[in-house]
């Protein structure tokens, strides 16, 4: 631009002070009219009550030291963390061999570390998937044993490691199955399409609880008598089959969002069906469906607590059983508080990661 043109330009000025800063923001958003002001005050009051109540119960009035009698005195007013201190090993690991529970701790650490790595953009890609599969193999080894570790039968698996295993293995195996189902549902071959539609709609039409029951009770009826399939494995298969249907629908949404021109360009190059899908369509479709897949995963993680009903020791079940000891029996509620907190921490973190992924992918779209 020339100097003469610059001279005509009105210099940029700062916006008026009332529009900026915390005060300006509050005036604009919280107190912009009498109705808005009332809503703000009511909301603030409710928030204060809830937060204060929660803090009183879990912190200020909670029993951190003392005897079961101290807890009894505060029953209903404050949490009995004493019971948790006594029983936390059972809550976290269930009936897993006591001297081997460090393995369960490693499993938890491994899952947390993998979730952390998955949140880092630099690691996004195929390698992350391989990483998860490898982590899963290590987890299975740590849980079951062998290769120098003492064998712990699956009937003793429990607590957080079991919950995380069911959820993460569920989503990892459901992923390829979901891709196949989604492609099948969009296939031009009527038989394949019908099969996939039937499967997806059937599974989506029944609650997970019934899938688990079928996997646990009915499945063995179909098998020859001398073959028994491990109970954890049966639940795991049920969760995978269930999650796959939802994953398929998420991926189908992504497939639909890939423009027709992409299919045509791939066709015009002479790429066959599988190359077209794996090189062109799926990479774009999966990217679009990742946020919904992650959201499905959060549901799966919480839904694993349903395996309680087929008598597996998942986190929710161990939190309940831990309080069966006579001196702690009255404080079972605090077990649920702890289990709830653990679930919340995981689900909330994953939800944050999902939001981050969504944001990054959006930006990616704009740049491209």
């Amino acid at each position, binding site marked *: 631009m020339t100097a003469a043109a610059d001279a005509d330009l009105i210099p940029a000025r700062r916006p008026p002070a009332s529009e900026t800063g915390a005060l300006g923001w509050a005036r604009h958003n919280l107190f912009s009219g009498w109705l808005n002001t009332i809503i703000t005050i009511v909301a603030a009051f409710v928030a204060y009550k809830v937060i204060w109540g929660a803090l009183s119960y879990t912190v200020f009035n909670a029993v951190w030291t003392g005897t079961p009698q101290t807890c009894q005195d505060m029953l209903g007013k404050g949490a009995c963390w004493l019971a948790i201190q006594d029983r936390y090993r059972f809550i976290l690991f269930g009936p897993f061999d006591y001297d081997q529970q460090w393995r369960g701790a490693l499993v938890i650490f491994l899952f947390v570390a993998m979730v952390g790595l998955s949140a880092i953009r630099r690691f996004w890609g195929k390698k992350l998937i391989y990483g998860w599969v490898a982590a899963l193999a290590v987890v299975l080894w740590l849980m079951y044993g062998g290769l120098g570790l003492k064998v712990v039968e699956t009937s003793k698996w429990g607590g957080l490691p079991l919950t995380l295993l069911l959820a993460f293995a569920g989503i990892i195996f459901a992923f390829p199955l979901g891709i196949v189902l989604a492609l099948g549902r969009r296939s031009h071959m009527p038989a394949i399409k019908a099969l996939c539609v039937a499967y997806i709609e059937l599974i989506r039409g029944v609650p997970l609880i019934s899938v688990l029951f079928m996997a646990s009770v009915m499945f063995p009826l179909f098998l020859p008598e001398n073959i028994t399939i491990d109970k954890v494995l049966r639940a795991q298969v049920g969760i995978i089959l269930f999650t796959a249907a939802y994953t398929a629908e998420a991926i189908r949404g992504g497939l639909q969002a890939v*423009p027709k021109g992409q299919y045509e360009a791939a066709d015009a*190059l*002479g790429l066959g069906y599988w190359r077209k899908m794996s*090189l062109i369509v799926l990479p774009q479709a999966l990217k679009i469906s990742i946020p919904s897949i992650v959201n499905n995963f959060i549901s799966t993680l919480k839904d694993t607590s349903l395996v309680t009903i087929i008598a597996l020791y998942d986190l929710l079940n161990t939190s309940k059983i831990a309080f069966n000891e006579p001196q702690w029996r009255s404080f079972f509620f605090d077990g649920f508080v702890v289990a709830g907190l653990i679930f919340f921490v995981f689900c909330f973190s994953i939800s944050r990661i999902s939001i981050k992924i969504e944001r990054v992918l959006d930006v990616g779209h704009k740049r491209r």
Partner: protein
Amino acid sequence: MSQPIITMNKVNKWYGEFHVLRDIELAVSKGERIVVCGPSGSGKSTLIRCINRLEEHQAGSIKVDGIELTDDVKNIEQIRREVGMVFQHFNLFPHLTVLENCCLGPIWVRKMPRAEAEEIAMKYLKRVRIPEQANKYPGQLSGGQQQRVAIARSLCMNPKIMLFDEPTSALDPEMVKEVLDVMIGLAEDSGMTMLCVTHEMGFARSVAHRVIFMDRGQIIEQNDPETFFHSPQNERTKLFLSQILAH
């Protein structure tokens, strides 16, 4: 000219009840350059998309490079290997770099080693005058640049025939020329068979051997550019030409 490389015989096509191509008769010689024009909705895109089977015809026969187009997937893939296509909206693969876009066909369809494919890709990127963009993503390029990449991507397959479906009509006016220049260059020094749907009459005059006018699914008139533009025979051709030459 030599024997035809594309023959269309009484080709008919319907979209549901809608008769979009009617008794199309067309023979394209090896090395011939044809411009197809006509009003919007007259079936120009459908016609050239039938040549690489992006659309299926329902009656008549189409023969490309000696192969009859049928449901046989093997035949279709073989023909697509020899026929390049450039789309109105470029249709570059947004998740791959410019270089990867160009290498994809040679590597996966022609089974070429990556190094060789990259060498060829760079050769054609130079030819369309954007070798310096090789490692960018399509979204980082202007429309004109993207269309030139799309042309390079097709050329990397070393096709015998190139199809262009309104390659410049989605472009901002200042970018039309850079794409047309590339296409003119390609026409002049490759001798490749080209079919191009376009309303760029300057382009038609300078490179086409034959101009085809379509209306309502039929080929109404065809002639060499000189005759076509100066003494159109059909009333509808005259009307169409007066409309597009007016603005």
